[in-house]
C-alpha cells in the first residue's frame, strides 16, 4: 500500500510515543522515518529502533545531534561525531530529516561525522510516498494504539463537547 509521507510520519510519531519515546524525540524520529523509507532504506532499521524503546537509537541519536548542533561555529556550521549506536542508514536519515542543510556526512572511525549549516534551510526535497510491509504497518498501528484512551460512555457523551446527533 502506498503511504503519504505525512501520514506515515504521523503514525510513526504515535508509535514511538506508544513505545515509550518522549514526544520531541518521537517527532524527530518520525520525520526521519519518512525520509528513510522514501529513500528506499530498510524498514527493519526503524523497527529495531522502535523495539529498543524507551532506550536506544531514538533517544540516543537525538542526544548526539543535540550535542553537535550546540557546537556551532561563528558561521553557523555545526560539526561532530556520531558513534555507531545505530545503523549508518538510520543515522543518515535522522541527519537528513533535520531542518538544516546537511553539508557533510561521512564515515569516520567508530561512526560518522556530520556537518550541518544551521543558517541554511534543508534544501532537500520533502520525503515522497513510500510503501511499507503489512507486518510493519500492523506493528506501527499496534504501538500507536497505546496512546489512545479507551472509549467509555462518559467520554463519548462529554469528551468532545458535542451531542451525538445533528438533525437541525
Amino acid at each position, binding site marked *: 500500500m502506498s503511504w503519504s509521507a505525512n501520514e506515515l510520519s504521523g503514525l510513526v510519531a504515535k508509535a514511538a510515543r506508544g513505545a515509550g519515546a518522549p514526544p520531541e524525540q518521537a517527532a524527530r524520529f518520525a520525520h526521519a522515518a519518512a525520509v528513510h523509507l522514501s529513500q528506499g532504506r530498510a524498514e527493519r532499521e526503524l523497527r529495531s529502533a522502535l523495539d529498543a524503546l524507551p532506550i536506544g537509537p531514538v533517544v540516543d541519536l537525538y542526544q548526539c545531534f543535540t550535542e553537535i548542533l550546540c557546537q556551532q561555529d561563528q558561521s553557523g556550521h555545526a560539526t561532530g561525531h556520531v558513534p555507531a549506536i545505530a545503523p549508518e542508514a538510520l543515522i543518515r536519515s535522522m541527519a537528513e530529516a533535520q531542518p538544516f542543510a546537511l553539508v557533510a556526512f561521512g564515515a569516520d572511525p567508530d561512526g560518522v561525522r556530520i556537518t550541518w549549516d544551521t543558517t541554511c534551510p534543508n534544501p532537500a526535497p520533502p520525503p515522497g510516498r513510500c510503501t511499507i510491509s503489512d507486518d510493519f504497518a500492523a506493528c506501527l498501528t499496534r504501538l500507536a494504539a497505546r496512546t489512545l484512551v479507551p472509549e467509555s460512555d462518559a467520554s463519548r457523551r462529554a469528551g*468532545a463537547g458535542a451531542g451525538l446527533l445533528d438533525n437541525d
Partner: protein
Amino acid sequence: MKDIPCPDQMPLRPPSEVMRLARMGSMFPTRLSFLRTLMRRLSVERADVSTPVWQIDAAGFGHAVITVPLGGHIYSLVAVSTDLPDDMRTDRVIATAWDTAYVLYDGVPDAAEIARICANAPLQEAGRFTERDLILSRANKSVRLFSHVTDALRQGRQPDSAFVRQVGYLMRTTAVYGNGKFGIADRHVVAARPGLEGPFMAEMLTVWLIRHFTHALAEHIGGAALSRPIKRHLGIGNATGLGMAPFLVNHPVLLNNWMTVRETALARVRAVDRLTAGQIARLGVLAERAARHLDAWEVPDPEHQARIIRLRRDWVAACELLRAERLTGDKPLDQVMEDVADQSCDVQELMVALLLEPFGDLVDGLTECMADPFGALAPPLRDTGILRARIEADFHWALEPDYDRPDNCRQFWYVSAAKQEPRLGDRFAEDGASLESPLDIARRVKALHRDLPAQSQPMAAFLAGHPQHGLAAARVALSQRYPYAEIQDNLIAQTCLPIDMLRCKLAFFGASRFDPKSDLWTRITLCQGAPLADELGADADDWWLPVFAQ
C-alpha cells in the same frame, strides 16, 4: 531588479498581549484570511468554473464533478451525495456516514477515477486515497434549511430570507482533510503551485467548490434557480471540535507566521501618516457594515449571545472613533487603536480587522509569508544557563501557575480509541490522563525550569539525564526566532476554553458567525457573501463581514 521600499510600520503588539487565549478567541476574519486570499487569486484569473459531470437523480443523490482552473492547473471537486438516515447524521468525528462526501482531485478525473472516488469518498477515514486526491471532505445538510429551500423552489418561490439569514448555509462540512491523510497527497505536492502556495489554500478551494455544489444541488432538487442575493448569502457551514486546537500547538512556526503577518499588517496601517478622503469614507462604510453584521449575528447559546449584545453596544461607541472629523490628524489609525485599548478584546480585534480592510496595497503582499516552507530553524540552545535565561525572559507566563493545584491542571487532552476522536477530560474524574497528549507546554516548561541545574551544563548532557524535557527545551529554543509561536496560557487549566483556539484558527481561515455549541465545539460559516462562480472579477474582494443584501 527593482528595489521596493518596505512600508513604514509602528511597533508590533507584543506576544504577551497578542498570544493570550482571550484575545485569540476574539479574532475576526480579515483581508489576510486564507479564503480572502484565495478569492482574490481566483478573481484575478477570472477562473471559469464548469460542471462536466452531473449524475444526480431527482432526489439529489448521485455524483458530480466540478472543475476550476487555477495557476495553470485544473482541479476538480468530485462530489458524492447519498441518502443518509437521520439517526446517522452527526457532525462528530465518530460519524461513519454523511450526506455528502468530496475529493478535490488534481486534474480532471476519467470515468475510472470517478468510480474509484465514488467508492472511497463516502467511507472517509475508512477509505483509501491516492496522490491525485488532494483534499478529502464531507458535509451534512442543515436539514431544516435544505428542506425549506428545496420545497420553496419546487413551489415556485424563493426561500424565506429571514430563515436563510438565520442559518446561513445549506450544508456544513465536518472535516476537511489535507496533507497526506488516508493516502491523499502530501501538501508539498502542491505547495509551490501558483494559487496554492499559502496555508490551507487547497482546503479553501475545496470548501468554496462545495458551497457551489450545495447551491447547484438545491436548485437541481427544487427545479428552479435561487435568487442571486440568497445564493450569495448561503455560505458553507462547518462544525469544528477539538481536532483543530492541537494543530495550533503542534505547528508553532506556522502559528508564529500567521500572527506575525497579521500584527505586521496592523503595524503598517497604524503607521499611515494621513488618510485620503476616500479612505475615511471607506472606513465609515465598513464600520456601518460591521454594525449590521453584528445585528444579524444571533446564536442560541445565551452566554455567547450576551457577548454579542455587549459587542453591538460597544461597537456603536467605537464607531465614533471612525467619524471623519477624528481621522484628519497625523497617524489617525494609530490613534484609533490607542483609543480602543481600554475596550474589550472583542472591540479591539474587530477594529483591527476593520482597519486592515481598506489597505490591501499595504498588507496583502504579506500573505506570502504565512506558510512555513522550512520548518523550525532554531538549533538547540547551547547550555542550561542560556536556557534558563530564555525561559525567565520569554516564558514567565508559564512559570506563574502552580500546576499542582487542581484548578491549574484539571483538564487533559487525549485522543479516544473511538475513531481517534480528539477529546478533553477531567483528570480528577476520568480515566486516561496517563495517555495525555503533550499539549501542556506551559507545565512542561515550568518542570524543565525546575530541573535545571544551578551551575550551567551543556544542553546535551542535561537532556541525557532528562530526556522528558526535550519538547519543552525545543519550544524554548524557538522563542527568539518565532516570538508568536506559543499560546501564552495554561492549556490544561480548568479555565482554559479550547473554543478560543478554534476561533483563532477559523478566523485565519476566514470564518464568520461563530456559533459555539459548548466550550469545545463550534459551528461557523465560511464563504458567506463570497463571490459566486460567475461573479469572479474586479470587485469580487469586497465581502468582509457580509450582510444580507435584499
